[in-house]
């Protein structure tokens, strides 16, 4: 499993690996919003948590179709399926690699971009906390979507449509944590819901993804 993780990270870092694609997209969205909305600082700080979360979610979505597509095209997925690794482990490692190359950089970049959005000072900690808790769920759900659409040519559109509704609960509670934190309200409830969604998806979805992948490999 470690070997697969290292290989996936290495592939992402090399030329054409797509590392940084999500990050740059995130950067573009968040930089463009202040230009579009206008320089009104009160308005910007009010919408900052929501925009940062939407940006992170879309950036995550952008890199999803690469999770299995390349391995399917060059036959690696068939070979992995006949290897000693259980399919559940393969999809879990894929999700982890996706989070490390997409989710984690987003979490680290969010505070810097928060400055552009005039995020109130007390909002930074809740924002980082909510993104750290929420982005793993985005990667795991996305891996499930990628497993569903593997083998479809240009399956990216279908993938986005399938995954988007599943992302909604994470977005609602994640953005709520960040928003409440920014205005100084108690954020226990959405935080617990967000953590619950993430734990639930990590525990259950790899089994679903593995089952779907086995069907798609036929």
């Amino acid at each position: 499993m470690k070997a697969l993780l290292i290989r996936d990270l290495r592939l992402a870092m090399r030329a054409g690996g797509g590392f940084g694609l999500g990050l740059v997209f995130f950067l573009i969205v968040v930089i463009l919003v202040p230009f579009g909305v206008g320089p009104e600082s009160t308005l910007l700080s009010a919408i900052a948590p929501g925009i940062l979360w939407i940006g992170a979610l879309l950036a995550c979505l952008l890199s999803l179709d690469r999770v299995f597509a390349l391995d399917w095209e060059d036959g690696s997925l068939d070979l992995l399926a006949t290897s000693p690794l259980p399919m559940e482990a393969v999809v879990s490692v894929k999700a982890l690699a996706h989070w490390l190359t997409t989710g984690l950089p987003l979490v680290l970049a969010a505070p810097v971009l928060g400055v552009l959005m005039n995020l109130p000072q007390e909002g930074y900690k809740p924002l980082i906390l909510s993104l750290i808790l929420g982005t793993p769920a985005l990667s795991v759900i996305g891996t499930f979507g990628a497993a569903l659409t593997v083998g479809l040519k240009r399956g990216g559109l279908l993938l986005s449509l399938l995954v988007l509704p599943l992302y909604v609960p994470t977005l609602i509670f994640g953005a709520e944590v960040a928003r409440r934190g920014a205005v100084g309200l108690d954020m226990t409830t959405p935080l617990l819901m967000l953590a619950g969604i993430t734990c639930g998806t990590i525990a259950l979805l790899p089994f679903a993804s593995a089952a779907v992948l086995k069907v798609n490999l036929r």
Partner: protein
Amino acid sequence: MSLLVEDLTIARGGVRVLEGVSFTLPAGEALVLRGPNGIGKTTLLRTVAGLQPALSGRVEVDADSVAYAGHADGIKPTLSVVENLSFWAKVFGTEGIAPALEAFDLVALSDRPAGLLSAGQKRRLGLARLVLTGRSIWILDEPTVSLDRDAVAMFAKVVAGHLRSDGSALLASHIDLGLNDASVLDLSSYKAKPLNLNDFDEAFL
């Protein structure tokens, strides 16, 4: 470690292609599958490798002793030859990729990114992976595609060595590998008959 296939019926894309296929593959032997395009060689190999279910019949094999090599080699173009091979060695929990590199004459290409290799060199890299798996039953789908005559001889030598060490191989190939005592199974005689659809209603049930 032997492979037993009994009365197997398989389908590709929902259409039955082969029915009643039975054979055994004892340790130390090779079986070559022959038949025209579309007869279902690849489908049969994928079924035996456990990648897809059979419609009926039985495949008796220890899934942990099978190594499958399909049309695609599973090579990552941005990783070097050594990186590609050591990844599979780690996945299969075996050590030492040097024998595999030597067997397929890849030593000189060790540090080259796999994307820069020629088609035949890529194929050799894909086949070298088999040596690393340490598994006893090799399932090979057209292994000699894009190999030149020397490379085919190289490959035949590796397979012969594998058979001597009590391994076995199931191949779909049109080239005579010069393997002694390799039996040949012609799949044409197992071609599935079209279902009888005389009853008009049945087509909709």
